[in-house]
């Protein structure tokens, strides 16, 4: 399997009022194309921090991040934004849809940032919403949708952009069991049918049951990795 993401000796130390708090202490990992992988661990283990570094949202204190053979950690903020725009999709725990936009406009938002013509981005966003069975809610605003529906729109937003990888930070944490499981099924199907790479940070056992690989993180270190059938 072709490696698309690689982390080499990643360290992240947060500094506040002269106090240093290490969040990651030398993480090495690689993720291949088409993987459905979870980074698991208790709260404070560094899952979200690792996801942010892999997604180019933050700078590591030390170490390197590579995405499709391109080094990410030494890039400027503007360059990293450009890489995120064209190669990375995000799904957040709190959905983070833009409240004034409809579901369709939210799903098309990344495409708009890319400067695609209106017709093309609407078509792709509609198709993405349809994949997640949200077509009938296209004109609704986030406050007119349930939590599960909002998260499906967030996944559609990532899907419409056809990124190299989707990083999902605790995507099911705010959802009830049924809705959470439904969302997991949607993402599994996208992974299976479209080959979309998903990397989750989670401690949700419902999600962990469905991923094919789990990277366990504790105190900022990878303690073990397991392949799940």
């Amino acid at each position, binding site marked *: 399997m072709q490696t698309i993401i690689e982390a080499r000796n990643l360290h992240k130390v947060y500094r506040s009022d002269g106090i240093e708090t290490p969040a990651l202490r030398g993480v090495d990992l690689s993720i291949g194309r088409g993987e459905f992988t979870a980074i698991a661990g208790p709260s404070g283990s560094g899952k979200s921090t690792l996801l942010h570094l892999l997604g180019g949202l*933050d700078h590591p204190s030390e170490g390197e991040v590579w995405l499709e053979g391109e080094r990410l950690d030494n890039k400027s903020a503007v360059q990293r*934004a450009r890489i*995120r725009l064209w190669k990375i999709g995000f799904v957040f725990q709190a959905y983070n849809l833009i*409240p004034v936009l409809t579901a369709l406009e939210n799903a098309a938002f990344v495409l708009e940032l890319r400067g695609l013509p209106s017709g093309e981005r609407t078509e792709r966003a509609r198709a993405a919403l349809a994949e997640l069975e949200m077509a009938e809610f296209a004109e609704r605003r986030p406050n007119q949708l349930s939590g599960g529906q909002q998260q499906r729109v967030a996944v559609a937003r990532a899907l419409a952009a056809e990124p190299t990888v989707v990083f999902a930070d605790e995507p099911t944490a705010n959802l009830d069991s049924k809705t959470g499981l439904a969302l997991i099924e949607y993402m599994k199907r996208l992974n299976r049918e479209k080959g979309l790479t998903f990397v989750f940070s989670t401690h949700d056992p419902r999600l962990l049951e469905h991923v094919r690989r789990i990277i366990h993180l504790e105190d900022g270190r990878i303690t073990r990795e397991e392949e799940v059938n």
Partner: protein
Amino acid sequence: MWTLAWKNVWRGRGRSLVTAAAVAAVVALMLVMYGFSGATQNGMFQNLTRTTGHLVVRVKNADEAREFDMSLIRNAASLKQKLAEAVPGADVEEVLEVPALLASEARSRGVVLLGLEPDGHLMQEFGGKYLTAGKLPSGGDNWSADLGKALARALKVDVGQTVYAFAPGTDGLGAAAFAVSGLLDLPESTMEARTAILTLDVAQQLAAPDSASRIVIFLPDLKTLSQESELERVRDRLAPLVPEDYELLTWKEAQPALAAILEMMKPMILIYALLFFILAGLLVVNTVYLSLVERIREFGVIIALGADRWRIMRLVIMESLLLVSSGALVGGAIGGLALWHMSQGFSLPGNLAQQYAEFGLPEVLYASITPAQTAQVFIFTVVTAIASALWPAWLAGRLEPVEAMRHVA
């Protein structure tokens, strides 16, 4: 992004409405102010040019002429006729100013005898505006003159009494007796104390036959200050008709001090405009900044999704532009409507009208605005929108996505 910016503007509806209303008020006020200033300037322009004329022909450097006869246009009637034929519809008049000694039985004073055409525009202007007793002067066999009231007082004469004019060393009779036919209440006291008007033919016979100090041209279609270019076109057309020793000047060139008074109004209005727009700008800064603070988390998400700092700054500036433009559109409509109404003619209320009348302004003023002034309001609006958004935009552009997404408003 424009859609998002537009929707964002109206998220804080109350705040945005107040800000847009303030911008609308400033834009409307500016348009009305420019219109009012245009009306005042046009009023002053009409008032000034009623006595100075729009164009003047005179001897080159006439102001510096040492001798009376060096400042005279010889054979003035012929030149006047040429000019009148070249500008059909224009009122072309000769004026002869004669420095003289005017004496009564008791006293004498150095004066300027102003020879005006009896049926001309200037004579009617004097008669209509300043004549307070008697009638306008006559020529023919009954020579008479109208005296400034102050001059009549100084000479201790009244209507019906006789005064004697001496203009020695000239080509005319040099001396003559006149009946005082009327008294003039002139706007300037110095002018009133040393001016007498008589008919042109009488003045010419007294001092300079067939000559004039100046030929004045009134263009009836020229009613506003903004028609400057039209005036210059007429001047350029007439210039070849004027002999080399004479010069053809616009009223501004002939009366630079008066023109300067009108020019003074422009920077004052500009300063007012700047102050108003700065105040409106501060309100816009406040609105845009508060809107940013409330949406830090959202900006974090947009940055995480791939927007770089320039795009974020653009979004903030777009929001400011839309907010200010909304207000400006409403203000432009209100101001435009008010301007249209004022352009049909308006009078100032009570005391203000009296005060303005003392400056010689007409009772009814007509608002007007130039394309340059309209453009100025437009440019100020755009600059206000952009300048007000720069600081909030800069702050938004510097947000770190992870920190911003953790922000709790």
